[in-house]
């Protein structure tokens, strides 16, 4: 098991350095001089320009610059936002909980709808229920997230008035950020009205963001269940006289879940990309909205840091998924 872990780590580290190479190249590829970009419209006098160039190490050979960058990154220094002048890492960490909270509920939504749909479709293979379920799944899979968010907003917020249109919580409440997760913070404070407000604000964005993972999970559950239900041990379980519920839920689902773990893990990248659109649509103050604003404000250090951190999150999650896969499926470790 330890060897397996090391093997996975050996893939993780070069990938991370590869990404630093990309983000480093990204800043160099942006047309224009970084100092003039920072100075903005006011311009800068040539003397000061030369001093800044030397200070920032822009006159050093490119390899030195890259090594410097790596050194800074490893010390947690991802540069300073050009717009707000705060360290990029601090901005990221302040906004990250909002994205995690949203993604968590999106996955909860995806699992609570996708799993049952997939199981039912597998059990009633070839029936109307199966076709309808797979139709829903394929439609969800083909959904343009930003449009889906617009439609949900139009129907549930504007027309029916059931849910708030945007934001994380009603502006009536001020919650001291302790963990950054609003639901936990309001719960700790015991402020139930604020908790309810935060929960209501979550419903639409989580649904919009969770739709594609829901579709993928429903589809994968169905095919994985179909495969498992044809196995000998299922026949044995039925022959033993176990109830269908037990056969399906314990003997079937537990084995069908193994490939699903990988699928759910892969959805993290999809979720983070979807979060960019969903957060922009719902003015959700998370990483996705922040990245889009960084692009619009030409805040390249923020964009660079954001890309690096998000990629790091994706590869760490994939690493965890790989390890979990090894834990749940002992056969894989032996290879």
């Amino acid at each position: 098991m330890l060897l397996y872990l090391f093997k996975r780590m050996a893939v993780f580290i070069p990938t991370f350095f590869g990404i630093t190479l990309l983000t480093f190249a990204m800043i160099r590829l942006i047309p224009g001089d970084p100092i003039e970009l920072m100075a903005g419209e006011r311009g800068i006098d040539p003397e000061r320009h030369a001093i800044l160039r030397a200070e920032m190490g822009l006159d050093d050979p490119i390899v030195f610059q890259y090594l410097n960058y790596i050194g800074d990154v490893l010390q947690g220094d991802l540069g300073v936002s050009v717009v707000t002048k705060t360290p990029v890492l601090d901005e990221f960490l302040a906004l990250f909980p909002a994205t995690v909270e949203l993604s968590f509920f999106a996955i909860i939504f995806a699992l609570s709808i996708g799993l049952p749909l997939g199981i039912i479709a597998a059990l009633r293979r070839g029936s109307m229920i199966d076709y309808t379920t797979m139709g829903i799944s394929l439609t969800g899979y083909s959904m343009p997230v930003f449009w889906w968010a617009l439609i949900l907003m139009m129907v549930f917020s504007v027309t029916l008035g059931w849910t708030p249109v945007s934001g994380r919580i009603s502006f009536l409440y001020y919650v001291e950020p302790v963990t950054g997760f609003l639901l936990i913070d309001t719960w700790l404070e015991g402020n139930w009205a604020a908790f309810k407000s935060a929960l209501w604000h979550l419903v639409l964005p989580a649904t919009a963001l969770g739709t594609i993972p829901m579709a993928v999970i429903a589809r994968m559950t169905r095919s994985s269940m179909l495969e498992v239900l044809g196995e000998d041990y299922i026949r044995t379980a039925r022959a033993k006289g176990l109830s269908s519920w037990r056969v399906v839920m314990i003997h079937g689902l537990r084995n069908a879940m193994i490939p699903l773990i990988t699928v759910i893990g892969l959805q993290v990248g999809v979720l983070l990309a979807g979060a960019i659109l969903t957060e922009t649509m719902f003015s959700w103050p998370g990483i996705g909205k922040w990245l889009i604003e960084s692009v619009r404000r030409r805040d390249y250090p923020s964009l660079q840091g954001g890309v690096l951190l998000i990629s790091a999150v994706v590869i760490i999650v994939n690493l965890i998924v790989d390890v979990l896969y090894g834990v749940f499926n002992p056969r894989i470790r032996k290879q």
Partner: protein
Amino acid sequence: MTEITSKTDGENPQMTTEQTDSGAVVASTEVVNNYPHPIVEFWQYFRANKGAVFGLVVLVLLVLMAIFAPLLAPHPPNEQYRDALLMPPAWAEQGSMLYPLGTDDLGRDLLSRIMYGAQVSLTTGSMVVVLAVSFGILLGLLAGYFRGLVDIVITRLMDVMLAVPSLLSAIVIVAILGPSLLNAALAVVITQLPHFVRLTRSSVISEMPKPYVTASQVAGASHLRLMFNTILPNCLAPLIVQATLGISTAILDLAALGFLGMGAQPPTPEWGTMLSGSLQFMQRAPWMVTFPGLFILITVLCFNLMGDGLRDALDPKLKR
């Protein structure tokens, strides 16, 4: 994977004899053995999947709509009718048959814009995939055929590219190159590339040890011939499926970039770009929000349905 080769191996000579015997047209009764022509066989499997046939039919209609947009569209896409701002669709109370799906805030006919938008989405979507597949095949063949250092470099690079969520890397590339439809398309090509490289590479690696490759090698085939004439045709089935699904992702990503103001620029009638201005009219003109997105959904759905059908028809593992 083994079944792909055994199938194509068996059918390749057959295909050539048939073509010389009876021209391009297939007459399965004339064939001595009872195997149908590969294309006929393919069509039989594809036809069995009703969803795929439905997707194909709707897609053909969409393509026709795009091609004949200048003839079909009631108005030019960018013509502004000042006396018809925010007109609702024809079936609504204040609607008019002049503007079947209504007009936008500048008085442009929505249906005409959607029809011309189909041109933009379908052409850029398929061009993106053609480019991504071509470069993907090239890199994948190099990596899978030569292995060693070439393989390590290419695979590592692709792993790194896959670690960044695709929409995010597309946004970064557009931020570097500047917002335009061409740059957005280029960005999507780059984000799609790793999938095709990996797919080609893994197929090539599983084909390489097969006897037919060795036979060709012994017969003195050059590297290029081995790569493109011998191995590549046997790796195409999964690539075709992935390419079909790739078009749907490309259309989605291009629309998302257009929506964020990083793709096609107004007044180009691109579906995503059309939606980006509609947010503020959500209450007053819901049709402006509904229809362009609906067409994105339908187009993407059709490609996905077709991709499923192609997988059924081309993947021999599921055939039996």
